[in-house]
């Protein structure tokens, strides 16, 4: 048995719901229509083939080469990177870094340190400068070398795969970039990277990484680390250009990549790696 009041209540409810739905439909329709129109505009605009004015990102395929047999450990690359990209001048934030591997006589495993080692900071005098100390000068060293490291801008980047918000991505020209505006600071990418190449900016609450100096390479310049490297340890260029330094580097050397078993297919190619370098 239903009362008159109840019937009225339901009818009123349905009327209100109907009106609300209609209103919502209008809003959604309007938004979608607007989006569709904007989409058509973009499709017709030739500028939309590349997000960088005056630079066609479909024509380039960037890659990086590191000849570790040439590295003298001067750390000018680290300095240049920090200045160029305004990375925190302390011992915990690096987009690129250099590791020193030292095999002492009779030892099977190497001693590894980087510019962030406290003794090396002491040699530099400040965390804002970078210098390897000479702690092994009186030791019996059987083998030793420097290995510069950085983001490998992988063909199949694990960091991009795990990002839940599309903040990190691979550009059409092969550079793995990060959008600080979209990054929510969950640090999945930092955990996913097999190379430890990512860093976290605490002040902004976002992840950060090497961009191969995207703002330089799109203007025809070299990345800052390559620009200042005095021994041509670091080379950079376009794989689509057979005469580029990196094409020549890969063609003329027996190159390796770090951790090939990780399946990330790095685009930083090394010469002179060693069994313990990973």
């Amino acid at each position, binding site marked *: 048995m239903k009362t008159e009041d109840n019937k009225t209540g339901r009818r009123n409810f*349905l009327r209100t719901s109907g009106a*609300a*739905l209609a209103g*919502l*439909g209008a809003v*959604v329709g309007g*938004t*979608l229509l607007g*989006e569709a129109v*904007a989409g058509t505009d973009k499709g017709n605009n030739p500028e*939309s083939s590349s*997000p*960088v*004015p005056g630079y066609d*990102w479909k024509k380039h395929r960037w890659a990086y080469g590191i000849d570790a*047999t*040439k*590295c*003298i*450990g*001067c*750390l*000018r690359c680290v*300095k*240049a990177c920090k*200045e*160029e990209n305004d990375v925190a001048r302390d011992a915990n934030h690096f987009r690129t870094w250099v590791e*020193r591997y*030292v095999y002492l006589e009779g030892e099977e495993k190497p001693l590894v340190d980087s510019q962030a080692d406290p003794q090396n900071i002491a040699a530099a005098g400040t965390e804002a400068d970078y*210098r*390897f100390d*000479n702690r*092994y*000068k009186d030791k019996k*060293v059987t083998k*030793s*070398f*420097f290995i510069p490291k950085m983001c490998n801008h992988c063909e199949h980047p694990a960091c991009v795969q795990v990002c839940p918000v*599309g*903040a*990190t*991505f691979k*550009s059409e020209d092969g550079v793995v*970039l990060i*959008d600080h*505006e*979209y990054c929510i600071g969950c640090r999945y990418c930092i955990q996913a990277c097999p190379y430890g190449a990512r860093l976290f900016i605490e002040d902004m609450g976002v992840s950060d990484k090497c*961009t191969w*100096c*995207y*703002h*330089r390479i*799109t*203007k025809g*310049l070299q990345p*800052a680390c390559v*620009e*200042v490297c*005095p*021994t041509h340890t670091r080379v950079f260029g376009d794989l689509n250009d057979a005469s580029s330094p990196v094409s020549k580097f890969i063609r003329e050397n027996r190159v390796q990549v770090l951790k090939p078993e990780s399946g990330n297919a790095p685009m930083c190619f090394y010469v002179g790696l060693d069994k313990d370098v990973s």
Partner: protein
Amino acid sequence: MPKYIVRLLLILIAGSLLAYAAKVHFTDPSFYRFGHYRADAVTEIAGLKPVIQGAGQCLKCHEKREQDWAAGSHRTVQCEVCHGMGKTGHPDDGVSLVPKDTIRLCTMCHAAMPSRPARQPQIVVGEHPFAGEEKSQCISCHDPHMPGGGEADAGQPPTGPGAVPAVVSKCAKCHGSMGEGHKKNPALAGRPAGELADRLNKYRSGDISNKIMKKYASALSDEEIRQLAEYYAALPAPRPRIDP
């Protein structure tokens, strides 16, 4: 269809539309333009201003330096590597970029370290140029803009006409790998062999007083002095130096 099913469907449709509207509203317009990311982020990153300028910027004012720099083995070393990178305040604020402590600066690359490749020229601080020698600034002997000079690569023995005497590397350290001279160390290349030999003999005997040259000359045999003199005499004389 029963009414309650219709209502349920209406609510579901309304909910979906609302969710979709929210997604469209809150997603950046440039998202999905090229993929699952904001295309404008690429534009923003690419729009940053380069900081490291490269040698081209420096040579605009210091064009006289180019000839020396481009000829020496430091031609692979960009100006900013030694003179400072980033916001140095030069030239607008009148900040000088001449490095003061050249021992500290040069040993950044040239201090002997077991990790450095053997072909990198390296010195042991305190033993170079002589053991126990009072520490003097690197630039008192070396010209940082043209070490090694000419086309010769640093760290390699100089090549010249005829046989290269083994001891030549000692002379090259101060007089340049092609004997072109550095700062107050005079050029040897192209000087008459007799004059060079006579000079070395006088340093050795002490007839000409020179502490450093006596040290080196005393270690030379008559035969080595003859070879050195002939070697340097046969090398081409250096071109006139440009000192801005």
